[in-house]
Structure formats: structure tokens, C-alpha cells
């Protein structure tokens, strides 16, 4: 086009050629004269140079890049009033009006830091994050949870290798910093989970009901957690379920303990998915090979079916559903301590249903919505009793109380709404409300057929607000408060929370956290003799952390004060809440070190916790170090991937110093409890080993992906003692030990990926 017009003009006005040439050269020369030499230094708000900053005259070719000292220099050919634009990663863009009139122009440029997720300090006091999120600083990833040898594929098993959690093996749950397992609450997509673990079995820790594969993010807070969560004196385990899968797939697993199969379908637009899984567990074969401490009349069996759907409702919106139904049963007997030659029998049948629906959406004006509802039911049918050597049920004189049935039925509903508003930088306000409903029906049938019924309905209403304040990239605070009203206790509380983080250097930071936490006394001790109130804990935490791309080091110290803990009375052999006169405290420090780089192909972490705690609660005669608190706890976890063998070798070692044990008996004459026996159990050592063989890893075209697992717990067959069981009169005791010293798991997990890359291409066209 240009050439054509040019030609036309040139042909028509050939005679004018000379004049034109003169004219053109004049214009060009004039333009040459008007160049301005711009130079300067780009610095940040601390007057430190910003190398790599881009300096340019807006909408022109002219500009330069600041050198290592922040200096820049270039020639600008435009004239008059222009804008000088300076940009650099991590800084706010600056536009400076300049007048270009030739000659030299020297400009100092100062940039202001931009507070961004990548550069800003993170408030980490008291919490461990395990996620696949952008931030590379996450302590553990979801894969780590699955590949920790001692975890046996259980979420909480992996968390027990982190500082703060105890190695309690005789019952399920996370015992954090001197707190009981009931003081740790679990949340999935924001809503409280009431029966996270399989129903309790005496002396045997139960696994979580949820597969670690359904979570993409885990935040394990060992104290000082956010105002968004409540009703947990010690710790919050916050789990986030996965979003859309990468592709459609089918899966199959076979192991020594059961079989399972599933299907996951992703639509063509990659905007919605649904899936369904079924699993059957039967430990008959495993228990036939690996001798158990208990004599099983019915080895544990379970059926579980789960379903999910996930729908992208907008660019950032997502609606997720996850639900399951699970039923399990087991029965065993073991030698009775109360009458030699006889056995104690135990049987359990459980049915549990769980549904969780959550919705997140970006609204107008930088508002975000997070809503969730969960509904669950739980039914336990438990039978206790005695049998003679011929396995006939018997009722012994004076020991009639050992035969009873318990039938529990629970219905739980949680709803939660959080609105989040993002202000300038990362400053964010969150406000929300939560409603927790529980309805527990308990039927107790004594040996003589007498039926004791109780029903407890609780409604807890909560309101909370939290503000993230980023003063600079280096200094951030989180201020929050939570108010709760318990309809059952007819009490209201207000819990302030605050945390502060300061970035000391590029890779290191210090954090502080403070907070008050309330929790209802456990329902099993209620209805109480006297009106009860909330139990209370106050946390103080200080932390230092240094993170590089391959290593994490952190040290944390804490002090925790307990007030208004529940005390119980013995009424007709039952422990019933009597007052809130309990109290306690816990202090300690913890170390964590993870290194993925310095030893070739080896990824390992070490954690150590020191805990000093005493409390007076329940039936304790006085303030004591509880039987679930070890002074020293340590873990070493190692993972090594051997490329040649396509095999991941995982080894872990857990240690806990001897915990105290007590036999607390009730004296009917004084109406008081006393120590009939006490002492200290031996130190706990456990070395576990696991091997994952992945024959199809890395094959991008592979249609199947298989993982073969072999895991052995307590490899050295060491004796582990968790405490003692006592006869009713306290005269006899036996060691409380794991059901088997060693356990071996062998399994295969195969997923059949339905390759859809062809579809993806067609959709993009």
C-alpha cells in the first residue's frame, strides 16, 4: 500500500523531486537533532538498586533495562510531553511525566514494592501446610502424605511425623501439644467432620475414613489457628478436596486387605466431572497370616461406596460434592483380667454416611463467596460381654456389669458461609457464619435388660471476622475474632485471635501467634450433674522459619494454658461431667528440617518435639502429666526414588520417650479418685518401610498407570507398649500392645487413563 501511493505521488510530481529530497532530509535531520539522552538509577523504597527494571517511553521503541546497579541509559527520539514507564517484577509500575526537548535528562526513579502472594511474608506460626498450590514453600505435598512409610496411606499417619503430634498408638486421632484427640477437629472444604475416624475399638487405633487421594491441600495447625475455625482447643486439620481431575480414568486396586474399583469422568469442555468408587475390605486373610493379639470371631470387614461431582460454575467458581456410605463390622475376644479362664468379648457394627457440598464463586467488586453444607449420620451397635473357654456367653457373679450393649445414633449437619473481600495488595477481609447441629441418641442396655436412654441435641451458632493486613511485603498481621453460642450450654463466648509475621530476609521469617480457643465439653460426659460451660485454651506461639527451594527449617516455641476443663464424677459406675474446675498448661519447643537436595536423590525430614505438660481434668485426682503426653517425640522420614528401578523407597523412624501411665480408681467411701498404680511405659520405637514400584511412570502415552505397594510396619519387630489394661479391682494388669507387632501390606493400584488429548485439541480449534 505504502509503496503504491509512494509510486503514484512520485510519478505525478517527478519535477518536484529535488525539492522533496531536500524537504525529507530536512525532516530527518530535525528529528535527529531532537533526541534526548535519558539516564538514571532505579531504586526501591530502601534505596537499593532494582536490576532488570524495564524503563521505557510509553508507546515507543525507546527504552532500556536497568543494569546490576540499577542504572539505565537510552536515547529517546520522541518530543514534547511523554510518559516514562518503569516496570519490574515485584514492584508497582511507575509512570513519570517527562518533557523531551533534546539534550540530557537525568532521572532518579524510586519503585514501591507490590505486595503479592509470591513475595509477601506468609503467616505460618502454628501451622503446617501440605498442598500443591503455587507457593513452593509448602512443607509437605499431597504425594508426601501417601508416600510416608509409617503413615500406611492414612492422612493423620503422615501428620504424626510432623512436630507437635504425639505417637499415640492405642487410640485414633491427633494428640497435639498436650491436648487430647478430641481437641483436634477436622474440616473438609470448610465444614466440620464429626466422625473422621472409624468408630473406636478398645485398645486399637482406627484409621481415618477418608482416602488421602481426595485431598489436594492440607493445613495442619498445631495451634493459633484462624478465627474461621472453632470448637477445637488444640488443633485444626483443614483439608481441601481436589478440583476437576486432569482426565477421565478408571481405577482398580487389589491388596491383601481388599479390593476396590472406581470411575471418574471428565466432560469434553473440562468444566465438569463425576465419579464413583466402591471398596470392599476384609481382613480375614491378613489376620490368618499375621497373628493378632485379639482372637477374632469376625475379622474386620467393610463396604464403602463414594460418589462425587464437580462443576465449574464460572471462571473461578466451583461446585463440589463428595459423599459416601460406609459400613463395617468386627468382633473379637481376649483373655479377661477379671476372671481367669474367661474371655472378654467385643463386637461392633457401624454405618456411616457423609455428604459434603461446597460452592466457591468470585462475586463483583473483589468479593468472594465460600459456602458449604455437610450432613452425616452415624450408627454404632456395640456389644460387650464375657465368654467361657467354649465361647459361650456367660454372666459371672459380681462381673455382671461387664455385659452391656450400646446403640448410638447420631445425626449431624453443618452449614457455613464465608464472604471474602480483597482490598489493595493482599489485604483481605473475611466475614462469615457457621451453624453446627448435632443430635446424639444413646441407648445403653444393661445385662439385666434395663434400658437407659439419653438424647442430646446441640446447636452451635458462630460468627467470625478476620482481617489480613499487609503493611509491606515484609510485615503482615492477621487479626480475627470468633463468637459462638451454644444452645445446649446456653452460653456465649468471644475468642480473639492474632498473628504476626515478619520477613527477616529473602528466605527467612519470624512469626508470632496468640489466640483464645473454646470447645464444648465432650458429649459422652453429658448430661452433667451441674450446668457446664465452654472449656478454654489460650495459645502463645513464636516461630522462626527459613525456606529455600529445596530445604525447610523451622523452630517453634509455644505456651498453652487450659482453663475450665471438664471434671467428672463417678455416678453408678459412669463418668459424668460435674464441673468446669479442670485446668492445665503445656509448653515446649519443636524443630523441623526437610532437605530435598543436599543428599543426591534423597528427600528426608526430621522433626523433634519437646513437651512439658500437666493437667487436672476428668477423673484425675490431681494435676498430672496425662498418659497421652510424651516428653520427647521425634521422627525421621526418608524417601528415595531410584530411577533405574522405577521404585520409590520410603523409610521412617518414629520415637517417643516413655509416657506415664496411671490406674485411676474410684473410692466410694471418700467419693474421690486415687492412683491405684502408676509408672512410665518404655520408650517407643517404630521403623517402617515402604516400597512403591511405578512401572508406567513418565510414559506420557501410557494408558495405564500402576503403583505396586509393599509396606512393612515395625520392621525390626520391636516390642511396643502403649500402656496397661487393668482388671476391675486393679489387682491384675497386662500390657496394652498393638494387635500385631509387625504388619505387612501388599497391594496394587492401577488407573486406566482415558487419553483425551485429541479431544482437547479439537476443542481448542
Amino acid at each position, binding site marked *: 500500500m505504502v509503496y503504491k501511493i509512494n509510486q503514484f505521488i512520485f510519478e505525478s510530481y517527478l519535477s518536484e523531486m529535488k525539492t522533496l529530497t531536500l524537504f525529507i532530509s530536512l525532516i530527518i535531520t530535525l528529528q535527529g537533532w531532537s533526541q534526548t539522552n535519558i539516564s538514571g538509577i532505579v531504586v526501591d523504597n530502601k534505596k537499593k538498586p532494582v536490576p532488570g527494571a524495564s524503563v521505557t517511553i510509553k508507546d515507543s521503541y525507546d527504552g532500556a533495562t536497568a543494569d546490576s546497579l540499577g542504572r539505565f541509559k537510552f536515547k529517546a527520539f520522541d518530543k514534547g510531553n511523554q510518559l516514562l514507564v518503569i516496570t519490574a517484577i515485584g514492584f508497582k509500575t511507575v509512570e513519570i511525566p517527562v518533557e523531551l526537548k533534546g539534550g540530557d535528562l537525568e532521572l532518579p526513579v524510586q519503585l514501591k514494592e507490590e505486595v503479592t502472594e509470591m513475595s509477601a511474608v506468609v503467616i505460618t506460626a502454628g501451622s503446617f501446610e501440605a498442598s500443591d498450590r503455587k507457593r513452593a514453600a509448602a512443607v509437605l505435598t499431597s504425594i508426601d502424605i501417601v508416600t510416608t512409610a509409617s503413615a500406611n496411606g492414612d492422612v493423620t499417619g503422615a501428620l504424626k511425623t510432623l512436630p507437635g503430634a504425639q505417637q499415640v498408638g492405642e487410640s485414633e486421632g491427633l494428640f497435639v501439644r498436650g491436648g487430647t484427640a478430641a481437641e483436634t477437629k477436622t474440616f473438609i472444604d470448610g465444614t466440620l467432620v464429626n466422625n473422621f475416624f472409624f468408630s473406636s475399638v478398645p485398645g486399637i487405633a482406627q484409621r481415618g475414613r477418608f482416602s488421602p487421594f481426595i485431598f489436594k491441600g492440607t493445613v495442619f495447625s498445631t495451634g493459633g489457628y484462624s478465627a474461621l475455625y472453632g470448637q477445637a482447643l488444640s488443633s485444626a486439620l483443614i483439608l481441601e478436596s481436589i478440583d476437576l481431575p486432569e482426565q477421565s480414568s478408571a481405577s482398580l486396586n487389589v491388596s491383601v486387605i481388599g479390593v476396590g474399583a472406581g470411575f471418574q469422568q471428565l466432560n469434553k469442555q473440562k468444566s465438569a466431572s463425576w465419579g464413583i468408587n466402591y471398596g470392599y475390605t476384609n481382613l480375614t486373610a491378613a489376620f490368618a497370616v499375621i497373628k493378632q493379639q485379639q482372637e477374632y470371631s469376625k475379622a474386620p470387614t467393610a463396604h464403602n461406596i463414594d460418589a462425587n461431582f464437580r462443576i465449574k460454575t464460572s471462571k473461578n467458581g466451583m461446585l463440589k460434592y463428595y459423599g459416601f456410605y460406609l459400613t463395617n463390622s468386627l468382633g473379637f475376644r481376649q483373655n479377661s483380667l477379671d476372671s481367669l479362664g474367661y474371655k472378654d468379648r467385643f463386637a461392633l457394627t457401624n454405618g456411616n454416611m457423609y455428604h459434603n457440598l461446597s460452592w466457591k464463586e468470585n462475586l463483583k467488586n473483589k468479593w468472594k463467596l465460600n459456602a458449604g453444607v455437610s450432613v452425616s449420620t452415624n450408627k454404632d451397635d456395640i456389644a460387650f460381654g464375657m465368654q467361657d473357654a467354649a465361647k459361650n456367653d456367660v454372666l459371672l457373679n459380681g462381673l455382671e456389669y461387664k455385659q452391656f450393649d450400646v446403640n448410638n445414633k447420631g445425626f449431624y449437619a453443618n452449614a457455613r458461609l464465608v464472604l471474602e473481600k480483597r482490598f489493595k495488595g493482599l489485604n483481605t477481609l473475611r466475614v462469615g457464619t457457621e451453624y453446627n447441629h448435632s443430635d446424639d441418641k444413646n441407648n445403653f442396655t444393661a445385662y439385666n435388660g434395663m434400658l437407659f436412654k439419653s438424647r442430646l441435641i446441640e446447636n452451635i451458632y458462630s460468627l467470625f471476622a478476620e482481617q489480613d493486613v499487609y503493611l509491606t511485603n515484609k510485615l503482615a498481621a492477621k487479626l480475627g475474632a470468633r463468637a459462638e453460642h451454644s444452645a445446649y450450654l446456653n452460653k456465649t463466648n468471644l475468642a480473639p485471635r492474632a498473628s504476626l509475621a515478619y520477613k527477616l530476609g529473602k528466605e527467612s521469617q519470624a512469626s508470632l501467634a496468640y489466640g483464645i480457643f473454646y470447645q464444648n465439653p465432650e458429649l459422652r460426659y453429658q448430661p452433667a450433674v451441674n450446668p457446664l460451660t465452654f472449656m478454654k485454651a489460650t495459645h502463645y506461639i513464636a516461630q522462626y522459619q527459613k525456606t*529455600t527451594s529445596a530445604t525447610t527449617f523451622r523452630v517453634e516455641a509455644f505456651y498453652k494454658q487450659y482453663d475450665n476443663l471438664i471434671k467428672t464424677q463417678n455416678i453408678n459406675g459412669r463418668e459424668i461431667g460435674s464441673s468446669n474446675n479442670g485446668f492445665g498448661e503445656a509448653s515446649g519447643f519443636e524443630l523441623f528440617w526437610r532437605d530435598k537436595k543436599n543428599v543426591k536423590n534423597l528427600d528426608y525430614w526430621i522433626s523433634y518435639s519437646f513437651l512439658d505438660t500437666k493437667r487436672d481434668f476428668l477423673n484425675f485426682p490431681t494435676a498430672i502429666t496425662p498418659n497421652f503426653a510424651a516428653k520427647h517425640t521425634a521422627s525421621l522420614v526418608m524417601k528415595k526414588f531410584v530411577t533405574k528401578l522405577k521404585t520409590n523407597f520410603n523409610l521412617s523412624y518414629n520415637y517417643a520417650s516413655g509416657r506415664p501411665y496411671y490406674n485411676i480408681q474410684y473410692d466410694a467411701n471418700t467419693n474421690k479418685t486415687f492412683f491405684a498404680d502408676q509408672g512410665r511405659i518404655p520408650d517407643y520405637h517404630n521403623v517402617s518401610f515402604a516400597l512403591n514400584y511405578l512401572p508406567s511412570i513418565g510414559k506420557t502415552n501410557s494408558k495405564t498407570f500402576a503403583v505396586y505397594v509393599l509396606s512393612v510396619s515395625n520392621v525390626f519387630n520391636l516390642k511396643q507398649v502403649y500402656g496397661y489394661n487393668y482388671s476391675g479391682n486393679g489387682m491384675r494388669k497386662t500390657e496394652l500392645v498393638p494387635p500385631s507387632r509387625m504388619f505387612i501390606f501388599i497391594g496394587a493400584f492401577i488407573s486406566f487413563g482415558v487419553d483425551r488429548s485429541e479431544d482437547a485439541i479439537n476443542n481448542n480449534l
Partner: protein
Amino acid sequence: MKQVLLALFFVNICVTSFAQSERYTGAMAKNLQAMAEAKTADAMLDVVNAFERIGNAEKTQWLPYYYAAVAQVWHAFMVNDPKQNDVLGDKATAFLAKAEAIEKNNSEIALVKAMIATVKMMVDPMSRYMQYGTISAENIALSKKLDPNNPRPYMWEAQGLSRTPEQFGGGCANAKPIFEEAVKRFETFKPATALHPNWGRQQNEQALAACK
């Protein structure tokens, strides 16, 4: 004279626009040269900034933004600090989005998407492989489909494979046939103009040679 003045006016416009396009061509060529010669991360960042300036000034050309994204990817590789890869990858994505707003369904742009996915995967390959490996594979396939004669998706795929251990389905034996597919296409590939993407031939030959 009125006619002469009018003509002069036209001439001035034409000269300016002619100069403008020559200036664009010249600046692009100069930066392409600088990109080929950049040996350090700093030098590469300078190239990124220069292409960004041209892109911002021109507004209707996709090539400056495309090259800014490519140079940004090289810059990330040269910086070689996985912790920064998310930020640098996001910056490259922003350039590429501007290029794509002008030029849609382009094989070269699809390939850069695959390159950025690799940059992001490197932050934590173990846990990001599933997500970014898929994005990378999809975009390599898309790039091939949009222009079956483009040698670069083959080169990028082969390079990725050659760096992957044999046990994972990579290694030279698996990469070689794809390198050779790339060689075939490099021999016949003709860029639309001198400024259109025509890089990678030497890189491909070196990588293939290293495999022998």
C-alpha cells in the same frame, strides 16, 4: 502550489509510515540478533524488555509479544532458580496472551504454551507433573496440528524426552526419531517473513548430536 503542498503532505505521511515499518523491521531484526547472542540471564531480560516495548508501541503486531514470551522462557531457564519459575512463567503467559489476542490459532503460540508449562512444572516436578505435563503434551500436540510443517513442537518434544530417564519412557532412543522428524521439517520450513519464528534448527542439531 496547493497541489504541491497536498502532495508534500502525502509524501511526509508516506515517508513516515515507510520509515515506521522500516523501523519496526529494523528493531525486530536487531532484537532477534540480540536474542540469538544473549549468553546471560541479564542480557536475555534486556531482550524481553525490548520486545515488550516494540509490542506496546505497535499494538497490532503479535510477533513482538511472541518473542517477548519466548525470551522470557529462556530467561527463566537461564536464571535456573525453580522458586522464581512461577513468577517468570506468569510473566511469559501475560505476553503470550497479548500475542494470542492478535493472532489466534497459531502453531508457534501453542508451542510457547507448552514451554511455559515446562517452566512451571520445574517448581516442583514430583507433584506438578500430572498437571503441567498434561498441559505441555496437549499444547505440543495442538502446535503440530495447527501447522504440521512446524519443526519446533517436534524439537521441543524430543528435547523433553532426551532429558527424561529411559526408565520413564524417555532417553535418546525414544527421542531420536522425533529429533529426526524435526530435522526433516527444519529443512523445508519457510517462515512467512524474515521476522516470523525460524529458531531452533541449530539447537535441534546440537541436541541430536549429543544423543549420538
